[in-house]
């Protein structure tokens, strides 16, 4: 065993986060309700420090560690930066909300940090084992987060469903991994492709392995038909937790997809492309259709998220580096918009009032013209209206699909995004043309207001300068 210090360097941010996490764990034991903000600040500092370390170690070329089971390449670094950013935003958005709901405890912050660690590992995974380790660390923390309000019936039910279905998905993933290991004789992505290419085409073991693994990944992404947990969990979980689940973990799931199927099994693109086409089509189809029938904003955003995943898959399934870059761009875009959307629910909620019904948005323009404007921009962006960010993301993935000749799929995507525009526009109609049901003032802290405004304005800013982020994504994939 060659354990020199240099080989740890690519994992520096993760190790720092783990260290800080242990520190928070110990410090929190000695804190009371009144001094809890120390945990909050320490958590933010840990994330910021990790962010700095990732930025500092931003690799130009891939760096391997731990005998090839860990990789730090530009894609991993970019994803980690946005994950950490998203988690920091989540912590700021959710502070008031969890205070009002008796969740302002060390556990919340610790679970968030553990989950973040899992995501970082996932983004850097270079063997199937590392993938599994990161995934489980992430998933177990999230199950617990959903269940954090034990006395709440909805939350407990959601946690139960999430846990049971998640365990099933995890088992399928693990089974798929064992099949692939059986067929190729390696867990290492660097060797896997080569070994797989030597197999006869349509090797049944390999195909079984691919399908089982894809089910695991699709579950994490929330792609149809493995999406059933998404609406119930988004709805049942406390909004702060929903905000978390819908943001950074999507980047982690995207990383998992890229690592296993592009880094590992890129050679077998032909075999998995068809499955992704089916999932993509079903996702943006079903997601957009069912979102129309929702009356709950969290559920609506859940289905909208499912449809976004369908679009995200368009880029990956095209199998070109432009397509991967487009999907990476889409994933980041989705996280920015999703943070804004759920952040708006947090902004409007107060003690004893969840503000998660569509009707709660009625007449928002009369109550707060500024945030109505912010929400309108978010909705336009999600619907894919130019010049907002969401338009460019949709354009990029659709171009990727057209680029490989999947014109019919691209047309289907466009048609369903038109269908989807209905429910986004309905929100705008509710905000601007309906009378408010209550005239209670919007109580929220200044940090939430400022950050949420910045979040929404980013959707415009990045939309006006679309090439900047897209160029970074392309460079990361290249």
């Amino acid at each position, binding site marked *: 065993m060659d354990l020199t210090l240099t080989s740890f360097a690519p994992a520096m941010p993760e190790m720092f986060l783990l260290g800080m996490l242990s520190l928070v764990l110990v410090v929190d034991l000695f804190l009371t309700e009144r001094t809890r903000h120390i945990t909050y600040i320490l958590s933010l500092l840990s994330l910021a420090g990790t962010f700095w370390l990732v930025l500092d170690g931003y690799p130009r070329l891939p760096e391997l560690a731990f005998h090839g089971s860990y990789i730090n390449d530009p894609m991993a670094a970019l994803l980690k930066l946005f994950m950490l950013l998203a988690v920091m935003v989540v912590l700021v958005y959710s502070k008031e909300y969890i205070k009002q709901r008796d969740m302002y405890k060390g556990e919340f912050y610790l679970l968030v940090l553990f989950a973040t660690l899992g995501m970082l590992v996932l983004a850097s995974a270079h063997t199937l084992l590392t993938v599994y380790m990161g995934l489980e660390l992430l998933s177990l923390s999230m199950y617990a987060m959903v269940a954090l309000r034990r006395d709440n019936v909805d939350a407990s039910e959601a946690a*139960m469903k999430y846990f049971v279905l998640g365990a099933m998905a995890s088992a399928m993933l693990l089974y798929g991994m064992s099949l692939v290991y059986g067929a190729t004789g390696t867990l290492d992505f660097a060797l896997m492709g080569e070994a797989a290419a030597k197999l006869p085409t349509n090797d049944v073991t390999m195909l079984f392995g691919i*399908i089982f693994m*894809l*089910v695991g990944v699709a579950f994490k992404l929330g792609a149809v038909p493995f999406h*059933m947990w998404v609406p119930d969990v988004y709805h049942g979980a406390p909004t702060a937790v929903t905000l978390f689940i819908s943001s950074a973990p999507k980047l982690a799931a995207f990383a998992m997809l890229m690592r296993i199927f592009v880094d590992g099994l890129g050679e077998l693109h032909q075999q998995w492309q068809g499955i992704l086409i089916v999932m993509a089509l079903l996702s943006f189809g079903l997601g957009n259709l*069912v979102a*129309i029938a929702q009356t709950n904003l969290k559920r609506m955003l859940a289905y909208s998220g499912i449809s976004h995943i369908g679009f995200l898959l368009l880029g990956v399934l095209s199998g070109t580096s432009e397509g991967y870059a487009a999907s990476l761009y889409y994933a980041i875009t989705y996280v920015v918009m999703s943070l804004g959307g759920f952040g708006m629910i947090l902004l409007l909620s107060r003690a004893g009032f969840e503000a998660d019904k569509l009707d709660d948005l009625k007449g928002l323009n009369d109550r707060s013209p500024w945030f109505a404007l912010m929400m309108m921009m978010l909705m336009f962006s999600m619907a894919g209206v130019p010049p907002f960010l969401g338009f460019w993301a949709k354009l990029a993935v659709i171009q990727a699909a057209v680029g490989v000749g999947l014109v019919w799929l691209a047309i289907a995507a466009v048609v369903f995004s038109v*269908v989807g525009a209905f429910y986004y526009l309905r929100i705008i109609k509710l905000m601007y043309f309906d009378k408010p049901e209550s005239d209670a003032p919007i109580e929220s802290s200044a940090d939430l207001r400022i950050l949420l405004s910045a979040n929404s304005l980013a959707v415009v800013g990045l939309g006006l300068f679309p090439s900047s982020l897209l160029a970074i994504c392309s460079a990361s994939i290249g």
Partner: protein
Amino acid sequence: MTESLHNILVAIVLAPLIGSILAGLFAGPLGRKGAHTVTIVGVAIACLLSMYVFKRIAIDEIGVFNQTIYTWLKSDGISFEVGFLVDNLTAMMMVVVTFVSLMVHVYTIGYMSHDEENWPEGSGAGVNSYQRFFSYISLFTFSMLMLVMANNFMQLFFGWEAVGLVSYLLIGFWSVRETAVFANLKAFLVNRVGDFGFILGIAGVLMYFNTLDYASVFAVAEQHKDLTMNIWGDEQWSVMTVICILLFIGAMGKSAQVPLHVWLPDSMEGPTPISALIHAATMVTAGIYMVARMSPLYELSETALTFVMIIGALTAFFMGLLGLIQNDIKRVVAYSTLSQLGYMTVALGVSAYAAGVFHLMTHAFFKALLFLGAGSVIIAMHHDQDMRNMGGLRKYMPWTWGTSLVGSLALIGAPGFAGYYSKDSIIMAVGASHLPYADLVYVMVLAGVFITALYSFRMYFLVFHGEPRMDEHTKEHLHECPRVVTWPLIALAVPSVAAGAVFVSSMPFGDFFDGAIKVAHEHDTLAHVGEHFHGWFSMFLHGFVALPTWLAAAGVGTAYYLYMKRPDIPAMIERKLSLVHWVLDNKYGFDAFNQGVIAAASRGLGRFLWKVSDLLLIDGLVVNGSAKSVGLLAAVTRHLQSGYLYHYAFVMIVGLLALFGIFILQ
């Protein structure tokens, strides 16, 4: 060097925009004083920097600035960008636009100070109207700058539409007045017709040149000279002619040329400052500017040039006639604007682009001056605009009187004043033109000089001289306007006198516009006229023996005789020539035709399409039908989400098996 200009140009455009956004979005917190301060500071910055740019580009001759500032997107090889092309032509326009705009901003403080009286009690629309007005005029300045500074057709179109939008908003500024709403709708619809041609022209450019960038288009324009296209039937049309005429249709809408002129007189429903800024000095000249900018294209089509010339001559002559019978002080100035725009268009038609643009500049100064003077009179008259109730205002409003006299003399082309140099250049260029019908046009523009003098001094005498005809109450309150009103008048009077003599040797008869404007050798009427040009002073002296000057003097004399000496004659003429008067009074029937035939037919068609194809077919079958089926589908599929854990697990297993079925057993 260009780098420093880059930032300055961006600042020029953004300063008014930022002022507009602040005044518009933060009207409440800023208050009136704050709103006019931020917008005036924004426009003042733009004006000073424009003057600096003018100095660098036109005087220091550091070369043309042509650079893309921001690329929005590239699609199918065509890029949509914001870029600036700043040469002498642009620099001149920037100074004119920002200077007039700055004067109007200052003037507006006085004109709108009692704006709350213009709104009915408790009207919600009247809240913060003062700030809104400032926000709009700053937004206009931004849009107009984007238009003149564009280096590509896309941005030109953006600016074109943006100034149209602001014009629409400002004509209908007093949105509680029915006439104002009617007028802005009319302006909007008529401009739609023009813009339809304009965008088709741009589409034509894109189709044949495959780029929207000016420089690239002009560089290869020559090669497309003999290209023809098939529009309908077997007739072959020259591509250049089609493109130029389509673009000119856009200019006809924006610059109010016959028959798309009908919106401009009605646009006087808006507050006077915007009549000065938008509907006299700047926006309406956008069409003139555009054609001058596109001179490399127009030079390739004599048909298009002839078309431009004839439309211009018709406008110059017939619209001037209408000015003779108006009683509303602003309408006289409005018809005068139409007629002067006609002169500019004639200049474009005879390839004297430089003279046209020169007239554009001098006209911007003296017409803004006349409008603001009229506005000053209107303020003093408590918003009564009827000249029959005025008279003898000279002794009450000395500054307004003096500056209006300067404006009128410049307008009629009295030797020495700015208008003399520019208008005379145009008339001489027409005389030198060899286009078909140029002789007839020459007669029309000469007759126009007489008419211009007649209506201008009719207005002048009716307003400032003679017996006061207003009621006692108004008369008691007559006094000169505050300084925010008179100072802009004086500031505008200076270039109305001097701009002609200063620039005549460089602009129409020099090389000022070389590079920006391209004239084919065989069309170069100005060079022909220029052979006899020996400096501004000799041109000034020549003015006393030239025919146009005598025509103008005759016009003034006639006006004096008719309206000062024998005020009974006009009434008698009106009786004797009742048919002519009737025709003029109905503005040649354009409005009646538009409303009775075109509008009625469109409404009939629209009603049919609405009832049958829209309500029944599109809404009923297609839209509601598909919406209903989507809704139904959504309602059904949502039941898949039963809430039972075992259902969910079952779906996952079924999904897994289905994937097996599809991809393994196939």
